[in-house]
């Protein structure tokens, strides 16, 4: 334990410090040092004897140094005695110096809020602009890669199609099977009230093929593959791998971004097809169980309910959704800065923005198809 004893001899105060002056005891040491300063007030001279100190670390030395400085500032002539050589050296190394506190600019709260608001509007505009620039660069680079044959990275494309497309099949099939079944069940229950339970098949066919299949697949892929793209590109950016590519004369866009986005664009329609089929199958099972519609009857009802256009409306949207997911993910990945926190933020932003954009674009498609009556 830290010990402090003082003895006053006229104008001179003599302090004797002993025990352990270490960081672990800093809670007790700081008040003791303050006591020391208080005790010496009014005295002309203070002698600080360090001979009894058993252990001293930088924190203890700093606290002593700070007290000595405060004593000197109070007009007391201070001298240190009996310090062991290593303690004297430590005291000298940790000699008190004033560190200016970091300036924290604090403005008005309302101004801060407005400034934040303005900044986010500007950054949203910047995002849109950057997105268009990125899309342009992507199209130019991809077109160039196709034209200048041999520059195209087929291996990379196939690899990413496997990881984004093929490996997503089980989860896409499963969630769409469930959603198809749920839609069928709700459709049957609601339509039964009008004695129109069999029309649930129309509901399933149209809803799944036009909207749900592609939407669920896109959202799942944004979460599963979009985040992966952002994290991959982001950590490559952090570790200067992207810079390494650039100085080798390779375009990161061509080497990293194009294969990934193209893989998504090719995979998503295929996955959407899988999604459509498994949702229809889910509907088939539920119709069979709840409404007693046999599979053969289900298929013929389905054939009447939907046309080829219903099927294609969903499928046409898929590559656009893939492009949006890929562009957002790649942009966010490339925008990653040095820290782990930044990577996390960009992965989150990638998924959120991609899902948001997918839903917005789906809405625009709905308006478009309605107005061309497809």
């Amino acid at each position, binding site marked *: 334990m830290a010990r402090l004893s003082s003895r006053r001899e006229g104008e001179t105060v003599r302090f004797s410090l002993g025990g352990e002056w270490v960081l*672990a005891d800093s809670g007790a040491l*700081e008040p003791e040092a303050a006591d020391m300063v208080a005790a010496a007030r009014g005295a002309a001279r203070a002698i600080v004897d360090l001979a009894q100190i058993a252990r001293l670390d*930088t924190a203890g030395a700093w*606290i002593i140094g700070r007290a000595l400085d405060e004593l000197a500032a109070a007009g007391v002539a201070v001298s240190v005695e009996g310090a062991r*050589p*290593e303690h004297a050296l430590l005291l000298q190394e*940790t000699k008190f110096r004033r560190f200016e506190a970091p300036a924290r600019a604090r403005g008005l709260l309302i101004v801060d809020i407005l400034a934040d608001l303005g900044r986010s509007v500007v950054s949203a505009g910047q995002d849109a602009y950057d997105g268009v620039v990125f899309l342009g660069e992507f199209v130019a680079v991809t077109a160039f890669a196709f034209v200048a044959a041999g520059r195209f990275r087929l291996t990379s494309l196939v690899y990413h199609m496997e990881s984004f497309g093929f490996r997503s099949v089980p989860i896409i099939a499963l969630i769409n099977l469930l959603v198809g079944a749920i839609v069928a069940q709700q459709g049957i229950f609601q339509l039964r009230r009008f004695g129109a339970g069999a029309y649930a098949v129309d509901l399933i066919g149209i809803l799944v093929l036009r909207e749900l299949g592609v939407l669920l697949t896109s959202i799942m892929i944004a979460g599963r593959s979009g985040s992966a793209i952002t994290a991959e590109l982001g950590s490559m950016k952090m570790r200067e791998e992207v810079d390494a590519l650039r100085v080798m004369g390779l375009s990161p866009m061509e080497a990293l971004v194009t294969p990934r986005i193209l893989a998504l664009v090719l995979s998503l329609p295929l996955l959407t097809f899988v999604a459509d089929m498994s949702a229809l199958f889910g509907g088939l099972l539920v119709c069979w169980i709840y409404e007693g519609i046999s599979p053969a009857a289900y298929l013929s009802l389905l054939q009447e309910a939907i046309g080829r256009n219903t099927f294609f409306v969903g499928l046409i949207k898929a590559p656009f959704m893939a492009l949006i997911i890929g562009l957002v993910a790649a942009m966010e990945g490339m925008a990653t800065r040095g820290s*782990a926190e930044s990577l996390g933020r960009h992965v989150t932003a990638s998924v959120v923005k991609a899902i948001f954009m997918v839903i917005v674009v789906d809405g625009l498609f709905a308006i478009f198809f309605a107005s061309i009556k497809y």
Partner: protein
Amino acid sequence: MSLASELPPTTKAPEPSAAREIIRVRDLVVGFGQTLVMRGLDLDVYRGEVLGFVGGSGQGKSVLMRTILGLVEKRSGLIELFGRDRDRLSTAERRLVERRWGVLFQNGALFSSLTVRQNIQMPMRESGQVSAKLMDELAMLKLALVGLPASAADKFPAELSGGMVKRAALARALALDPELVFLDEPTSGLDPIGAAEFDELIATLQHTLGLTVFMVTHDLDSLYSICDRVAALAEGKVIAAGTMEEMLACDHPWLQAYFHGVRGSRLAGAPGARQKDMRGRG
């Protein structure tokens, strides 16, 4: 920081007696899959000394350090830290041991989402009991001790140069004034002036705080100027350990090549001030 040499030679006494061993490794075997990295390695680190650890690239210097730290599982063997078998420590005891050492990783391993100041305060914060004001002052003090400007305190690691990251990481390793410091290639990536300052800093801290330093290094300058002893790793074992003179006299072919190669002999040929400095302190 040049104060180290003004000190009387009596203050440092790394007595190689059995009780003075701060790390004792016996018959250590470490392997990954089919490959054995350590094959019955023995190593002693004595209290208060600076041990330089050398070995060819890929020989497992870092693996040994990580094994001692408990980051890599050993297959068999004994590791004693501060005189206690690491396998027999309870979780609480192990945490106490971990409080007593500081580690400087090769690439700094600063927390990228915290500022330099917060990085340095992290261990203090975890130990509790330290007032905010003292923590701020100590963080700034450590920064000053490792030779970083005050302006670096509020920067994020990504904004620092490689040398500054090293210094900031050392400041964090020293945050709790540990008894034992592990340094993984502390001077790699520093300019010669910076590396020399780093060496002096470590020497000063060793004198003032009674630090024991386990230093993995390739820097022959560091080996000559601040290491009390040098241990060399090859073929999964410590092939030699001793003072620099003993190492230079050793006739193992790898050591011969290491110390008497083009770079080594340049230093050994004109040791002058360095050797004198070593004798003055040793």
